[in-house]
């Protein structure tokens, strides 16, 4: 193995809504950058939800609705966090769209 250093100086394409064009471009640094564009500085509480959502998507290939995401959070992280208000507090305004964007998932297209 050559001794190399990889730095994060790469331009990634986004779609018209600000979602990654290539979902495989996603990594932790990209998530931080996407979050900053939304005015969010990621904390461990954010990461807990991002990791949960990504795991759900990888297993099921489904993008949950807000309601299903809240239920998933309740099931995996407990009832205390499984409330839409908790999700809203971390990803304000449009929580599902924002968390999907930061997590490197496709844009949710369903209205519910």
């Amino acid at each position, binding site marked *: 193995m050559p001794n190399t250093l990889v730095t994060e100086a790469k331009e990634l394409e986004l779609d018209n809504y600000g979602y990654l064009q290539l979902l495989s471009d996603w990594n932790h640094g990209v998530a931080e950058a996407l979050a900053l564009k939304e005015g969010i500085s990621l904390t461990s509480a954010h990461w807990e939800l991002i990791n949960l959502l990504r795991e*759900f998507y990888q*297993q*099921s290939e489904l993008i949950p609705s807000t309601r299903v995401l809240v239920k998933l959070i309740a099931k995996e992280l407990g009832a205390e966090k499984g409330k839409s208000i908790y999700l809203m507090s971390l990803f304000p305004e449009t929580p599902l769209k924002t968390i999907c964007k930061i997590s490197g998932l496709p844009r949710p297209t*369903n209205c519910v």
Partner: protein
Amino acid sequence: MNPKNILIIIRQAPYSSTLPAAALDILLTAAAFEQNITLLFMGDGVLHLLSEQNATSSGMRNISKALPSLELYEVKKIFLEESALHKRKIENEELVMPLATLSLPEIAEVTEKADQVFNF
């Protein structure tokens, strides 16, 4: 508005058409509207349940991956036709998750009880 009894039947094998994926879309939409949903795999439809599928290169949807998560969508009635596994020499262990079976008379009954049947 009272929820309707919606029966979704998948009879077509995976990857030959987009109909089974459409069936899943209908299911998710109906679930979002809190309908009373039953999902049934009949005939070649049971081939969707095999756990060793890898659809990555096809660009098509692998329905089996969604099944274990459907409980979060309040879809809890998922069945397969009783004789369909045996006819295809498929063992229960090869399935992505264990499912309850329905005999043909039971299938006739759930069909009659459904307000709306989507048969793919």
